[in-house]
């Protein structure tokens, strides 16, 4: 056991920090989401930081997971904008690598790494949220193509995406897991309509996607026709893979701001206790993701202890943001107009946004079911 960086890890971290210092300019930080994001994503690609853990044969860096963890930590510490290609790099790409044909790999992977093509995810539907197997978007084969009809929801990046990973029902008589087919869909196809979905923060991070008689060539099936469930599980495994590091790093940045606010405004004994509790929790989740990562590096499978990281983090983020509002006092209700460095608007937004944390990427209830059944081995509830 050694909780310090190895010499290789320390060198990678130092190099990355220097690179961030040179490349993360104020223009990038202040820029509009999409343009700045494209620019930043391009820089990351040119710097060799896109697809760190992807195999070298597919254009990745072939780096160990520990480097990906360091990358995510340092990006969050520097408060860098998010990479526009997170769905492509973290979900679509690894799924294509695992299940794609050679033609699909050749056609798509390079453009994912360079962010020339942006991806979105079409999994959730109005009637299929936690219960993904209830998907109803239909894909009916007609010669050399499928005709897709249906509606997807909670899709980030869909308004700027070029491609979508889409879970469809190709066998209309099927129920549940069977009869699903996983498609790669060109978002510029006729019949694809994207509408922004305004959320409780007032902004629209997510979209609804409507598919009306959209033609998708059969060569865009990922995996087998009818084998979409297994392919979708690969995607979700990657979604939850190194997620713990990104979450820990984001929480670290949040708690750093909370501590700065408490120093500026003062905190009661009760608030001091609460801040200490959250900081201790942050260390706990950080070291738990390290333990899980060590198991991943040694065995190829992440340790089960990491399964609680997202569950715990989401609730911690809700507590931390509310604590910040409490430190601000009545001013917390003001959107603007404060002379304080503390920006009540920032914390309002963060607090409202945090309500989504216990819903997205697996609701807390689903995550507790998974832990109870798959980790603790309790009898299944369904």
């Amino acid at each position, binding site marked *: 056991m050694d909780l310090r960086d190895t010499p290789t890890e320390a060198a990678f971290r130092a190099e990355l920090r220097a690179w961030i210092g040179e490349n993360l300019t104020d223009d990038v930080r202040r820029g509009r989401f999409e343009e700045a994001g494209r620019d930043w994503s391009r820089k990351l690609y040119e710097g060799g930081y896109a697809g760190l853990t992807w195999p070298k044969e597919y254009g990745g860096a072939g780096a160990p997971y520990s480097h990906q963890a360091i990358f995510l930590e340092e990006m969050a510490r520097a408060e860098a904008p998010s990479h526009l290609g997170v769905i492509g790099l973290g979900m679509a790409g690894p799924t294509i690598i695992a299940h794609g044909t050679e033609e699909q790999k050749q056609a798509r992977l390079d453009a994912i790494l360079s962010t020339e093509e942006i991806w979105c995810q079409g999994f959730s539907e109005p009637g299929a949220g936690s219960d993904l197997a209830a998907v109803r978007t239909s894909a009916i084969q007609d010669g050399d193509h499928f005709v897709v009809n249906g509606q997807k929801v909670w899709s980030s990046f869909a308004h700027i995406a070029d491609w979508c990973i889409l879970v469809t029902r190709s066998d209309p008589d099927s129920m549940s897991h069977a009869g699903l087919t996983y498609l790669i869909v060109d978002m510029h196809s006729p019949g694809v309509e994207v509408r922004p979905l305004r959320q409780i923060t007032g902004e629209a991070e997510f979209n609804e996607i409507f598919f009306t008689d959209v033609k998708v060539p059969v060569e865009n099936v990922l995996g087998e026709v009818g084998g979409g469930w297994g392919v979708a599980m690969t995607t979700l495994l990657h979604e939850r893979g190194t997620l713990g590091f990104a979450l820990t790093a984001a929480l670290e940045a949040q708690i750093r701001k909370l501590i700065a606010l408490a120093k500026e405004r003062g905190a009661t004994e009760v608030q001091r206790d609460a801040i*200490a509790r959250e900081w201790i929790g942050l260390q706990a989740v950080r070291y738990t993701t390290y333990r899980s990562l060590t198991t991943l590096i040694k065995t190829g499978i992440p340790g089960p202890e990491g399964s609680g990281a997202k569950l715990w983090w989401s609730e911690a983020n809700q507590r931390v943001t509310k604590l910040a509002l409490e430190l601000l006092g009545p001013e917390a209700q003001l959107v603007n107009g404060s002379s304080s460095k503390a920006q009540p608007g920032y914390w309002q937004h963060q607090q409202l946004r945090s309500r989504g944390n216990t819903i997205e990427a697996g609701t807390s209830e689903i995550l507790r079911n998974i832990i109870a059944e798959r980790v603790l081995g309790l009898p299944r509830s369904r």
Partner: protein
Amino acid sequence: MDFAFTQEQEELRREARAFLEANPEAPLAELRELGWLGVSVPEERGGGGLSFLDEAILFEEAGRALYSGPFLTTAVVLPALPEVDEQAWSVEVDGFVPDLLHVDRVLTQGMRSVPAEGEMLATMDETRPLGRLTSSDGDAVEGEWEPVRLRLLAALALEAVGIAQRALELGIEYVSEREQFGKKIGTYQAVSHPLADTYVETELARSLAYWAAWSVAEEDEGAAVAVAAAKAQCAETAVTACERSIQVHGGIGFTWEHPLHRYYKRAQWLDAFGGHAAVQRAVVAAALLD
């Protein structure tokens, strides 16, 4: 970064678990014969020449087995002595001495080695009674109390992880067998979700306890904050784990006959001794905010 125990350490854990499951009431002398005392003391001073991380495994397993001898206190005192001796030791903290009349000598916060004479007090955790010394006068022991304190808080945190783990295991076993309304009660989410929470909290606590142990072993500059953080969270996790386990056991968990109350009382003992969680968090808060 390598956050795992070595194969030798995992082997030590297996041996310790097997021994303590078979001999939960083994006298301290038997643990000494196994080489479990003075593990982290250099060989030239009569110790095992290993690290506090190896010792950490033993504290955790002793907690899981609810071991009742004065192992923890003896183990944290031995590195402070010029040489490992054959005596059973305890410590005096805030005027209280665990297992006072079950040990030979007591190390005080003033770094005095005092004969274990005084009065045992009726204590909620009957397996680890607190006592008061008749006199704190004794021979001076060279060195500082602070390293003893750091080892003690880390050891208490590690023992608490063992307690939480066992309370969780007992809960899982019970809800997987017990049936009501024609179903195993573990299928009800109102029963399974609290156990899922205990699992998550126990793993988080375990990470903190190992971080604290590593910080102590490495004499890391952040050790004082790490042990405070670990002591706070691990003790609270153990208490909550026992409470949830008692709840999912229903009536049987509330009986004297069932072992859970003994784990619950030990968990509360661990939280209280050396300062409750809120006291530890005040240390952390001062480091963060002042």
